[in-house]
Every structure is written in C-alpha cells, then in structure tokens.
C-alpha cells in the first residue's frame, strides 16, 4: 500500500490498484502549516493553517464549502489538498494513500488525475498565447494516457459536453476569443477530462460576470449529482455557498471555527465569527431597509 505502482500508461487505461475505493475519499488529519519569516535571529513564525481536520466520504459525493476572509488560510489549505505544498505536521490521506508518500512523475500524475483544481481567474489560468484546446489535449495525454489526435479530441469533446460546450466552439481559439463564462467552463472541462473524484475550486465564480455566475454555480450542482464528483468550494461568498453546498466549514486565521450542514450553519450560526460574517452579507432586501 505504501508505494504507488506506476500505472500502465501504454494501455490508456487507469488502474486503481493503489488507491482503495472503499475507504474515505479524503481525510485531512490535524494538518498545520507554519510559515516563518526572518533570518536566524528575530525569526517569526505564522500558522497559516492550524490543526485542521475533516473528511469527505467516498460513497456520498458532496460539495463542501470552505468560507473565510482573505488571510484565513483557505487557499493554503487548497494547495495542501492538491499536494502542491507539504503540511508542516499532520497527514492527508486520499483513498487510503498518504499524500506525502507520493513520489516521482508517474505517482504525481496518477494523483493529479483523481484530484483536479479550478482556479479563480480564468483569464490568468490560461496562457494568452496558447490555444485553449491544447490544455484539454494535454490533460487527455498526461492524465488519461491517451495516444493520438482523434482520441484526444474525443476526450476533450466529451468533457466539454459535460459543461455545456462542445469542441467546435473551443477548438483553435485563444483565451481572448472566449468570454469569461466560456473560459471558466473550459477550465472546468479541463479538470473533468481525467474523470476526477475530487475537484478543488478556489473562488471559481468571483471573476465571472453576474449574468453568467449562476450557470457556473448550477454546473457544480450537476457535476455532483450526475458525475458523482465531490467538490471543495472555496469562497468568501456566503450566499452562493448556501445555494450549492451540502456542508460548510468556516475558517478564521487558519482555524476552523464552525462546521456543519450548510443550511444549519448559515441560518443559525453558533460561533460569533460566523454570526459576524452572516451579518455582513449584503442583500438586495437592504434596499427596503434604508
């Protein structure tokens, strides 16, 4: 169980030999990340993540919203879950495999095919000089191990159809030729090429226009319900978190202050910080109160 065996890339098939399907999808166990600044003298340390634990069940796909202000450690937590940075202490287990034991290119690619990110700003996520379809083809080649143009295009088209686009609309286009909504859908499609079990979305709608925002948010709902993908939805927007998520986790200064079912926590906050966030949410009803 400890070593990840290289998967047979040549066959183009994914194996789950080393990842156990019956265990929890993701377990974050007492994770702490400490950053330190300064030299040998006058060193100051700062805990970006302080003793965070939670888990996602494999049997029941869900949307977990992680809510907090900037500086609360949400993005650091996302990076740790994506195995981009290592925690200072604590363990993260994905389908029974400790992330710190993943080594080598093949092991990393195999892990990345199961856990995929979606970034905040679709205009920055894509290289402006590169056609966006290249990202989809590269994902099909690296994560799924497909060979040949036709196979890449078929995989890209299937993923794009899942987000309400098609390859015809995207093929050969540069990022500036697509609208923000289309680009964000394309970046979601890119994440879906390898049929991941978990998607980590860091503020995915904050840069998307108002009239397109709901289409992206509704898309996350359908990914959960139809493709059975679990989603970690990182946001500071309580209203969309209430709308789509099953569970919420409120973070303040690296600590989890409140967690529970989304409707309960946001309608009836127990922790004073959650109550403060809840109070601060602007609503269209405020127009009547003035």
């Amino acid at each position, binding site marked *: 169980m400890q070593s990840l065996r290289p998967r047979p890339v040549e066959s183009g098939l994914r194996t789950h030999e080393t990842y156990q399907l019956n265990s929890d999808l993701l377990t974050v166990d007492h994770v702490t990340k400490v950053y330190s600044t300064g030299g040998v003298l006058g060193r100051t340390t700062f805990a970006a993540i302080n003793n965070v634990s939670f888990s996602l069940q494999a049997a029941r796909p869900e949307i977990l919203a992680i809510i907090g*202000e*900037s500086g609360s450690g949400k993005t650091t937590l996302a990076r740790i879950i994506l195995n981009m940075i290592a925690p200072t202490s604590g363990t993260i287990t994905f389908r029974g495999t400790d992330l710190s034991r993943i080594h080598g290119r093949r092991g990393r690619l195999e892990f990345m095919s199961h856990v995929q990110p979606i970034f905040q700003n679709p205009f920055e996520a894509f290289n402006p000089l590169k056609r966006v379809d290249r990202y989809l083809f590269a994902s099909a080649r690296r994560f799924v191990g497909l060979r040949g143009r036709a196979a890449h295009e078929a995989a890209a088209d299937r993923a794009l159809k899942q987000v309400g686009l098609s390859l015809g609309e995207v093929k050969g286009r540069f990022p500036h030729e697509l*609208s*923000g*909504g*289309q680009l964000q859908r394309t970046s979601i499609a890119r994440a879906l090429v390898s049929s991941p079990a978990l998607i980590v979305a860091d503020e995915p709608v904050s840069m998307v*226009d*108002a*009239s*397109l*925002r*709901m*289409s992206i*948010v*509704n898309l996350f709902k359908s990914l959960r319900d139809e493709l059975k993908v679990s989603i970690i939805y990182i946001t*500071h*927007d*309580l*209203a*969309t978190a*209430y*709308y789509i998520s099953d569970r919420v986790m409120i973070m303040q200064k690296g600590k989890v202050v409140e967690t529970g079912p989304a*409707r309960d926590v*946001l*309608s009836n906050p127990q922790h004073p910080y959650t109550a*403060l*966030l*809840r109070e*601060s*949410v*602007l*609503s*269209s*009803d*405020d*127009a*009547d109160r*003035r």
Partner: protein
Amino acid sequence: MEAALLVENLRAYYLMRYFGIVREVRAVDDISIEVQRNEIYGLAGESSSGKTTFIKTIAAAIRPPLKVASGRIKYGFLDRDIYDLSPEALSAIRWKHLSYITQGSMNVLNPIRRVRQSFLDFAFRHIIRSKREFFKIVDGHLARLHLAPSVLSAYPHELSGGMRQRVAIALATICRPEFIIADEPTTALDVVVQKSVLRMIREAQQEFGSSMIFVTHDLTVHANIADRLGIMYAGRIVEEAPTREIFHNPMHPYTAHLVASLPRIGDATLKKALSGAPPSLADPPGGCRFHPRCPLAMDICRQVHPALTTLAANHRVACYAASPLVKPGAELAPAPGGIRAANP
C-alpha cells in the same frame, strides 16, 4: 434645482486602425443621464459593458484610441461643458470639485512614501495654506471620518486593505468635492470590511453633501448604497429607476434576470441562468443588443434598437416587450465636425 451632472447623448468610441482598416468599438453609445444634487447614482453592468469607459469620458480622462464622438457633459459646479476646459483648468477642478475613488487603493498611495506625503501630493495645491494649517485640516478631516491620526505616518503596506481603502476615501473627500466618482471601491474587500467601507462612503457623502456616481457590478452593493440605479448592457443604459423600484419592479428582461438570479441565504430554490454571453462591442448585434439572449425577443427587437423611454415616474426602460409605449431609437451618425479629441 440644477442637476449635479447632466450627460446628454454621450457616445465614446475606441478607434482602432489595423493596416488601414478602421474599426470602431462603441463602448458608450448614446447615454443620457442626470444625477441630482446629494444623490448617489449607482451604475451596474458586467465587465465590458462600457462602465469604465463611461467613467473615463465623464471625468474627461480621454486618451487615444478612446474618442468622444458626440455628447455634452455638464457639471453643476461648472458653467460650461467639461470638454471646453483647457488642460490647466481641468487639473484645477480635479480633486477640488471632482474626485474619484478607485478599486485598488494600493494604486493611489505611493508605496515608498508615508501616507502623509500622499495627502500633500494630492491635496496641498488645492488648499493653499501653510503646511501646519494644512495638516490641521487633514487631522480634522480624518477625525470626522473616524480614522486615527496615526495612519498619516504609516506606509501603505503597513495598513490592511480595508484601511487603505478608507485612507483613499479620506483623500478623495479632503477638498469636499461637489462630485465623487467611485469605481468598484469595495470589490477587492472582504465581506466584513466591505460593509463598513460602504457605511463610511455613505457618511462622507452625506457629511459633505457631495453627489456621486457609484459603479459596481454587484447589485447587492447597490442595494446598500445607491439612491437610483442605471443598468448598463453592451454600452447602453437599458433601465433606470430608484433602487427599490429596480429590485421590486424590474421591467427590462435583463434587469429582471439579474435580480431574480441573486443568491440569498435562506433560499435554495434553483436559479435559472441566462444563456449566451454578453456581446462583443466591436461587433454588437443589430437592434436591441440584448435580443440574442432575451426570452421575450420579437421581430422589431432584431431591427431597431429601443429608445430609453420614461414609462413611470423616474423609471426609464429600453425594451419593446416591457411596454408598447417604448419608441424605436434613432441611429444617429456621429456629430458633424467629426470625432473630437479630448482637449481642443
């Protein structure tokens, strides 16, 4: 009573020349609005709807390739059109009578000088006093806005984002300007900070009796601050009404969609999303620019664009489906004499 700002038939185009081919991007196309004294006029629109171009044109901050094709902009504090001013006269009224609060407050404050220096840079030449008297005025102003005098000796990086935005507001209001333009001032802020910054903007505006144009794409922010709202879509204003009216009785299908799709806590019913995407301003659809996405589109919508028509008291709408009273708009050619430059 005289309006604080009167904009008449404003058209501002980006003129691009590629290998002899001229392309116009009609970013602001025939906008007429009136902002009353002591009023906060909210301007809502998505990215690339022309909000920022509109702000630039009314502040007379026009640089090629942006050109003003036609239109008149009249401020209450000026006896003539802002475009008739010389560059010197323009910089004399800026900050003193007309000031702006921008989105990234970090871009306003000089990162390597203390905040005190920014106050000197921006306002000293408008308040001609000795330095000691000047800082007395600054201290009094900060106290009125509930800011500690210690922020003056801080560097911008020592302040949090919310504090920097408050300092930027204090800077923008130090000369008690008649008119303030606020461009997405709370977009980069967290929810908790956003609410207190909005309260501060409102207090400052009431204290100094300024009029204001407040631009943001976020309708819930408008619900909290704006007295009247104009909704922009693809370079045109499609609906304008008092804020309450916009939320309770939206008449344009685009506004109705925006209001209906706002997620709110306590309501998890499925919200419908609008199909399609906002059009490119370089090649907008003919007729009403919203018709390709509109659920109510009729034949006439594809041919002639609807004029912004007053349908109720204070409520203007540009939509044939909203009411049969809406008149077709005239497709005017640019004003005779060609396109005029920023400063004659």
